[in-house]
């Protein structure tokens, strides 16, 4: 019974012009279109993402700021530190509110460690928050700080920038604000002109991007991150005293 009804259906279908056989759309055609569109969209996203990244990392100048020995490395605040003291790496994004809080609470203590050459203090200025916050302030601030480093004012500039961080996350830094931080830390006259040229030309932009890329390769996926001799320092219960103790323990 089933087979006869099936064969009858087949005969009807055979007699019917193709265009009338289906009541709906052709699933194969629709599926093909959908799959092609999805694949095209995914490939486009990968190409666009890669191209944007490529464009960002090759924009601007390729010179290293003073204190950085190679692309991807941080800026050493006190290169004169003796070899037996541990290296303290600090990874921060100038738009990161917790970094500003961290600087506010512990910045002086950390600066003191560097001034007394008890650690070799290395700053990695990251810029990943730009994509999150849809602006370019972290990148510009990192460029500005690198230009300040050229004049031996990195640490001061870094402190001034965190001090001037807008209360609302994502408000970002204006060019004028970044310049005012330079003036505030004593970059004036010819020095300010040099700073401005360096900043306007993004002389260190490829360096700034390389630091961001290298930090991710080194497993830094958030800020602030502290590493003492390459090992993560937990910020849970962190105090200047706990840092001092860890530094003492790591000093040879």
């Amino acid at each position, binding site marked *: 019974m089933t087979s006869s009804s099936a064969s009858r259906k087949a005969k009807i279908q055979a007699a019917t012009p193709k265009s009338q056989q289906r009541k709906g759309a052709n*699933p194969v055609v629709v599926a093909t279109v959908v799959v092609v569109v*999805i694949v095209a969209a995914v490939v486009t*996203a*990968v190409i666009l993402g*890669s191209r944007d990244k490529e464009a960002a990392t090759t924009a601007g100048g390729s010179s290293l700021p003073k204190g950085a020995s190679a692309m991807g490395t941080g800026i050493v605040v006190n290169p004169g530190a003796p070899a037996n003291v541990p290296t303290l790496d600090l990874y921060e994004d100038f738009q990161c509110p917790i970094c500003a809080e961290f600087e506010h609470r512990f910045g002086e203590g950390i600066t003191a460690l560097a001034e007394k050459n008890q650690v070799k203090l290395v700053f990695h200025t990251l810029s*990943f928050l730009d994509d999150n916050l*849809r602006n370019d302030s972290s990148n510009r601030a990192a460029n500005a700080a690198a230009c300040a480093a050229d004049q031996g004012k990195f640490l001061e500039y870094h402190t001034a920038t965190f001090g001037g961080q807008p209360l609302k996350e994502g408000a970002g830094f204006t060019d004028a604000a970044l310049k005012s931080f330079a003036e505030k830390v004593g970059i004036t006259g010819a020095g300010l002109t040099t700073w401005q040229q360096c900043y306007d030309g993004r002389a260190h932009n490829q360096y700034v991007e390389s630091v961001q890329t290298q930090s*991710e390769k080194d497993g830094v996926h*958030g800020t602030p991150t502290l590493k003492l001799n390459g090992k993560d320092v937990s910020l*849970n219960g962190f105090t200047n005293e706990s840092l001092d103790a860890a530094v003492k323990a790591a000093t040879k």
Partner: protein
Amino acid sequence: MSGAVADVGVLARPRTRDVIGLLARLVLGAVILVAGLLKVGHLETSARAVRAYQLLPYDVAGYVGYALPILEVAVGVLLVLGLFTRGSALVGGVLMVVFIVGISSAWARGLSIDCGCFGKGGTIAAAQTQYPQEIARDVGLLLCAAWLVLRPRTALSLERFLFPDRHDQARIDPDPHHERPPA
């Protein structure tokens, strides 16, 4: 499910199952769609969230991060509309398995990261990690996907309107036991 249970339970009614399927489809589809939309405008952040798992090489993780949001949007739209439900649910289910494996692995290795499921991602304070909740959510979504792969017929699906032929046939052959009209 045994025949006896199927016959007495309300689940036996195809219509009920269609509605359950609809709910599974909407929940799975909406979550994946929203997750994709929140990330699709922040491709670099998405790439970084994938890199934070430290499972793939830097470049490969980046490509995955660029591709994932748009794939999620596509699968989410198909599920919400109810078009190619079985295939979309299969892709959604595979994504959930991958996410569960990734999150479990991050947890096991002692990483402190946000899963990056809905944007953000990256390292967070250890106290802020939510691995059990993230895994539980993805297991729930995986169950939705499994239901839809096993029984892709759902109420109010676009494919029913677009391909009535297929559904007429589907109504005749599979599993006559369950398709028996209620007494």
